């Protein structure tokens, strides 16, 4: 069995973000880029299945420009066997186009299990995995915090508000992963060296035979802003009893939230 893991290169969200002069994007030259954190869990889950003898091959798949290869090398150093880069320069399509392109590329990969992160922490779009599943007409589950494979049947726990569903899916399937499912490994130095020799195949996004219309964007970012920080930062004074009473009074009478 082959597992494909979808890995996206995103800015490290511990970075300090600045809004660019166009007021509709962020300044990117100071940003450090990493593998989207949820994708790390997906990678680890795939490697563990291979180590358990339940998969023969793990292929890391990314869509983006040349720089994605750096992130893909991290995935290869974690243990992926090979990579497939769906290459597109510039901003790239919106989630709809990303999913169309990745689905088209995945058709030729022949993976029985496609793993993704529950969301990529740049656009926080939360939809690429589900779209790919629908486009490939596969059963799918999102926000998965536990996964077990027996034969051709995947059993997963899918987190919901205040609970979880346990689902059984037949392969081929698409699963998007939540944190906590495992502890992603750090690539070791020998594995980082080995990863340099692993193959990354390239596929041009324009050579996938997609209709130009599905790659077109119908979403325009009109503005970006940093969240307003109009916090009161009212650090209360007095003894404990006074401060607690002041706080409760403020929450009730001024803020009307209690």
């Amino acid at each position, binding site marked *: 069995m082959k597992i494909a893991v979808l890995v996206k290169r995103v800015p490290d*969200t*511990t970075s300090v*973000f600045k809004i660019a002069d166009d007021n509709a994007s962020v300044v990117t030259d100071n940003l450090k880029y990493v593998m989207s*954190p949820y994708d790390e869990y997906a990678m680890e889950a795939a490697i563990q299945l291979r180590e358990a003898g339940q998969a023969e091959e793990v292929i890391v798949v990314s869509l983006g420009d040349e720089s994605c290869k750096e992130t893909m090398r991290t995935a290869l150093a974690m243990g992926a066997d090979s990579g497939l880069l769906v290459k597109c320069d510039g901003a790239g399509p919106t*989630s*709809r186009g990303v*999913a169309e392109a990745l689905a088209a590329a995945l058709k030729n990969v022949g993976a029985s299990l496609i793993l993704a992160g529950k969301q990529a922490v740049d*656009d*926080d*779009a*939360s*939809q690429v*995995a*589900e779209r790919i599943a*629908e*486009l490939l007409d596969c*059963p*799918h*589950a*999102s*926000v998965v915090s536990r996964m077990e494979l027996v034969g051709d049947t995947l059993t997963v726990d*899918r*987190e919901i*508000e*205040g*609970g979880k*569903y*346990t*689902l*059984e*899916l037949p392969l081929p399937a698409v699963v998007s992963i939540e*944190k*906590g499912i495992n502890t992603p490994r750090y690539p070791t130095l020998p594995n980082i060296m080995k990863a340099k020799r692993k193959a990354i195949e390239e596929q041009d996004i324009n050579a996938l035979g997609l209709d130009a219309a599905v790659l077109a*964007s*119908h*979403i*325009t*970012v*009109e*503005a*970006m*802003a*940093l*969240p307003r920080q109009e*916090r*009161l*930062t*009212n*650090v*209360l004074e007095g003894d*404990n*009893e006074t401060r*607690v009473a002041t*706080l*409760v009074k403020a*929450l*009730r009478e001024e*803020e009307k*939230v*209690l």
Partner: protein
Amino acid sequence: MSVLVLLEQRGNLKACALEAATAANKIAQAAGMDLIAVYIGQSLADDSAQLAGLGINTVYAYENDALKYYSNDGYVPIVRDLVQELGAKVIIGSSSALGKELCASVAARLGVELVQDAIDVQWDSGLLAKKPVYAGKVLADVRITDSPAMVSLRPNVIAIEKNGDTVPTVEQRPMPEVSLRTVLKEAAEAAAGQIELTEAKIVVSGGRGIGGPENWPVVQDLADAMGAALGASRATVDAGWIHHSHQVGQTGKVVSPDVYVACGISGAIQHQAGMRTAKIIVAINKDANAPIFKICDYGIVGDLFEICPLLAKEVRKALG
């Protein structure tokens, strides 16, 4: 031309469904469109009174035992077919865990764009949404020019507004043929009375400052007094003091309550990613230089073991 709202239920109609309907109603009025709704589930009659005064003309109801629980295979084709049949121009859903999955899948089946997790949505000669990006560190205003234009709304950010008590017409729809590839083996729902973090109006969280798992009762008692859900920092989750379903932050849950009370939490940037959209932030920490005090509305520099019990007592006194 119509705006379609997806009414989420999990046994009962969810508050986020009424929030989505409120937003959809405003859009319908501004755009001069009809507001219609789809309900998929099992027992709309029990809840239909809640839909009064939201401006919904017709609810298309698909009710069947097989549709009691969300499933992609069951729900997605229904919504897709209804959108195509009625020619809805705008679709508003909820960014709950299941709502996001439904919206993403429907958008893919319709071949349209989708903006998830919007914290505001408006009509201004087209659909405009505000949504957090970069794990909440930046807010983006986006215009969706696709047709239908589709947005899902983060729960708890829009206040439900009713106007009058006009009840929508419910049109019962025949059960479409569904073949479920995915089997639901078990549905573990929240224990009755337990308040779910992302839906709570008040969240009280504990951090490493509580010292150890044996001290959760100090924070839990304050949460109980305030009628709040219990949150936690990652440090406490990583230490094994509490299940990660309580974790607030970049790699945990994003909450937008009316009040967020941080007890013994330093306020790391990754923690802020999960709570910075709270209306009011209260910080209790013994270190006056903790970063949490820079982003709080009300702060008390002090020992949480003294402050929390006093605060719980004061809240109980005030609430009677």
